[in-house]
């Protein structure tokens, strides 16, 4: 049964403990740091050599590791755990930077052409990166359309 709610810090520590055991089972040496990104997001990052196997093709294994980490934390906490993020070997960080560059390029095209652009469907975490990036730029705004897991963002010009 779920225990009383954990604070975000405690959720981060539970996630670190789970990941530490998982990396041990893999026989990988890794170090971890836990960072509160904001009031409702905690990120656990694993650093080490040759961790690419745990990232997997297009981050698929990393996504599974994050799912299982959240499941583990959920077992111990009644609080929602969808704000527990996991990164391995800096993968998510690099992907976020690439998505920001991609989004900035689309915004420039939308502003220049005056025509909206629909993006491919993407997950909630990636959509948040796109929303935040567009909101930080002038001349365009976002709206979301479609239903999960095919929900997608449209970037439209602001006149």
């Amino acid at each position, binding site marked *: 049964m779920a225990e009383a709610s954990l604070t975000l810090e405690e959720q981060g520590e539970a996630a670190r403990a789970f990941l530490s055991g*998982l990396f041990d089972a893999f*026989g990988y040496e890794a170090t971890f740091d836990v960072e509160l990104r904001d009031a409702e997001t905690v990120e656990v990052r694993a650093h080490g050599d*040759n*961790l*690419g*196997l745990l990232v997997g*093709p297009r981050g698929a*294994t990393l996504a599974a590791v994050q799912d*299982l980490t959240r*499941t583990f934390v959920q077992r111990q906490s009644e609080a929602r755990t969808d704000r527990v993020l996991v990164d391995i070997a800096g993968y998510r960080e690099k992907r976020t930077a690439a998505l920001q560059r991609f989004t900035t390029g689309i915004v420039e095209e939308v502003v220049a052409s005056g025509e909206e652009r629909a993006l491919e469907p993407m997950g909630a975490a990636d959509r948040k990166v796109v929303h935040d990036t567009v909101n930080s730029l002038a001349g365009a705004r976002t709206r979301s359309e479609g239903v999960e897991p095919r929900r997608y963002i449209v970037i439209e010009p602001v006149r």
Partner: protein
Amino acid sequence: MTGVDEAEGVAEAEGVAEGTDDAGNRVEGPTARAVVSYLVGSIVEDGDAVTIDADARGRSVRFQVHVAPEDMGRVIGRRGRVAQAIRTVVAAAGARDGVQTSVDIVDE
């Protein structure tokens, strides 16, 4: 990913120490076994009720996971999401051992 080949090399080197059971017999997929056992053990409430059978055929290993009835939902997850995540991570561990893996959550 670049890590795969290097990781397999490490697994080969460690295979002699890790890849044997208590009786000293060769065990296929030692990393995958350790990982499926760790993941299932971390998710269930009733760890004592967990048994995991491994059936090795050549370079593939099939794991059959048995858990307490009240833990079935936890291990499978909504729309099978937890079971699928277990399969993905165990497959990565199997790649370290040079074996293909499958994971069945057995309903009894």
